């Protein structure tokens, strides 16, 4: 029982990341009709916004301490971050909570990156075939990756969560189970809550604001909305910014879970396309649902018990391929995905 609960927690946690990325991907596909292969790279850039913020906060004044020596036998250099020098305890607090600082920084940065991308590149591809969109965004992803690699190197760069949110909590006790039965990392719970808030925010934004309503109308029928004299293009630009921000924030918050390095976006890209397809291309609730579902399926598939019993009937280790297998089955059996519009791609 506890093992199952643990895997469900793991599943929704993985699912949070999948859902967030797939949500942005679907927003872009739904509103702009663009298949965006750069989306994984946006997730990665979000993570590196956190790295950058960490590094900026760590810019230090260097003083020489003659009493100690470094590895070469020279007098040791002592580094004092300027923020602590200037702001004292508040500076320390900033460094400690740099992930949250990064969240604040990432929102405008990612929106800006998204808008620049849309204005500078994507908009010239609306009328071109999907294949061209895939190719140009794929090229952009390669370029972005290489830029990050040139700046930050290839090694993963660890980011720690604030002390207060590190370590694990006894989740089992909260739900009335025995002590120490289900111990779960606190930050992962934070990640889940954060993603729920973000997803909720996006849905509320689309449902309750005029802006959102216009965009939803635009998703349904772009031409008509255009005929009504509403400048749908500008709204779509902003939507691209929002999608980039969602991906970026997912990346920022992911850094304490997995130290970021430049290829991380590609790993998530393939996965998130699978999620979008399973959920139903163009369906926002579908993307979220499929994200969580696939997260949970993947978690269960990696349980030793399940791995062993599947291996016992002669099939290869299922956890390696489960996600792809699900995608293939869904595409063949129910091509419009879990919640896709009827008739979509069902030929």
């Amino acid at each position: 029982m506890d093992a199952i609960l643990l895997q469900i927690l793991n599943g929704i946690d993985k699912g949070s990341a999948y859902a967030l990325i797939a949500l942005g991907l679907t927003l872009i596909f739904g509103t702009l009709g663009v298949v965006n292969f750069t989306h994984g790279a946006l997730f990665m850039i979000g993570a590196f916004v956190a790295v950058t913020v960490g590094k900026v906060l760590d810019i230090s004044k260097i003083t020489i301490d003659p009493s100690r020596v470094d590895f070469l036998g020279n007098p040791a250099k002592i580094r004092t971050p300027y923020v602590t020098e200037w702001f004292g305890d508040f500076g320390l607090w900033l460094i400690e909570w740099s992930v949250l600082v990064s969240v604040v920084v990432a929102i405008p940065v990612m929106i800006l990156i998204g808008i620049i991308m849309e204005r500078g590149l994507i908009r010239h591809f609306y009328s071109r075939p999907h294949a061209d969109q895939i190719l140009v965004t794929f090229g952009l992803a390669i370029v972005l990756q290489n830029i990050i690699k040139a700046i930050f190197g290839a090694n993963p760069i660890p980011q720690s969560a604030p002390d207060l949110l590190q370590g694990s909590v006894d989740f089992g006790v909260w739900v009335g189970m025995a002590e120490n039965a289900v111990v779960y990392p606190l930050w992962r719970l934070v990640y889940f809550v954060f993603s729920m808030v973000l997803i909720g925010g996006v849905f509320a934004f689309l449902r309750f604001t005029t802006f959102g309503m216009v965009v939803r109308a635009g998703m349904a029928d772009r031409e008509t909305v255009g005929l009504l004299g509403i400048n749908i293009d500008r709204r779509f630009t902003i939507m691209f910014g929002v999608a980039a921000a969602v991906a970026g924030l997912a990346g920022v918050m992911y850094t304490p879970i997995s130290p970021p390095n430049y290829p991380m976006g590609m790993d998530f890209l393939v996965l998130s396309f699978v999620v979008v397809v399973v959920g139903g291309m163009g369906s926002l609730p579908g993307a979220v649902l499929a994200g969580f579902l696939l997260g949970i399926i993947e978690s269960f598939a990696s349980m030793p018990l399940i791995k062993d019993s599947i291996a016992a009937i002669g099939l290869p280790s299922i956890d390696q391929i489960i996600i792809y297998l699900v995608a293939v089955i869904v595409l063949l059996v129910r091509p419009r995905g879990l919640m896709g519009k009827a008739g979509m791609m069902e030929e």
Partner: protein
Amino acid sequence: MSKLILNRRGLLKTGAAVGAGMAMPTILTAASDGGYTNAPTGSTVTLGFNVPQSGPYADEGADELRAYLLAVKHLNGEGDGGMMNTFSSKELKGNGILGRKVEYVTGDTQTKSDAARASAQSMIQKDGAVMITGGSSSGVAIAVQGLCQEAGIIFMAGLTHSNDTTGKDKKANGFRHFFNGYMSAAALAPVLADRYGTDRKAYHLTADYTWGWTQQASMAAATEAKGWETVANVLTPLTTTDFSSYIAPVINSGADVLVLNHYGGNMINSLTSAVQFGLKDKMVNNKNFEIIVPLYSRLMAKGAGENVKGIFGSTNWHWSLQDEGSKAFVQSFGQEYGFPPSQAAHTVYCQTLLYADACERAGTHNPCGVGEALEGFKFSGLGNGDVEYRAEDHQCFKDVLVVKGKENPTSEFDLLEVVEVTPRAQVEYDPENEFFAGGSLGTCNPGA
């Protein structure tokens, strides 16, 4: 473009490289000391440094490249000479190799066998390299080693830890200075038994590919010999980035030790997950739960950040060693680049020097002569105490370091501390040991 280069050939010589778009005739076979592939005829000799420059191990590759450049400097008599001064063999005079100035070419393995072989081929066929060295993963090392055997070139392996490199995939033209999975396990097991007791239940998470399997098998065998019990071995896909679903079942499995047979990004992510799940502070069977990472590198430790603190593992070499050779190397490397070298840097620097020395002793670059000079060669002064290149499988035998993540690092490089230096005798094994049997060196191939 090429016209310009041809005009500048004189200048290029000092630059010590042959590069792209260039139209320099290649010497395939030749004259005096001939009869082997790419025998050098002029006043220079070209070495090929084939390291990952893209992909996840690019930083490791960059560090290797730094060490290679340093070695070339020292061989050509520039700089402070580094470990040439402490090396027990005194053949190297700082006048290049066999009086020929050392030049080099670089290439990108991309950590893919295909790309690595393509890059090595271009060094052999285009640039006339007489030795290839480098690499940062076993798949690549074995692939390039096979290629060099076919082409008649010496291969001095870089970072490769799989038993197979000098086990079932060993080759007459290939030599490995780095240690291997078996040696890691043999070095670690006694220390672990000593610290954690002999009554332990170990849970293994293993990267699902050749290196992971050999590492796991070696660890399981070595720890079981000390009385440990292996309760589970779960294979994790190479592409996993979130290990939470593999870590969670460990918690209530009854195991009190977790062994992470992972390397690189896998290891960083699995260790991060394990620590987040609170395994480090857990009590099981009235014992402190422990995590072990059989193969450590400083770059990995850096990637895993705080999480490595107190975690045991093994490493080939560490810059904090206090023997003369290590000190000289750290000094020399640190002066040049401003930070201490990694174990990858150390191993490739040694490999370059060892190759050069073997050429001097053999009086030729002929792979067969060089191979003969390296086989059974005993030396010291390159760190790791007294070392021997075993003739039977071309594996270097030397002391192995057991390290653990440092609790209170004093600098960003000070991440590991050496707990124990396991003497060579304890990690030696029979070449036909179950983990290594099945291969054959074959005959040395001079090519041409």
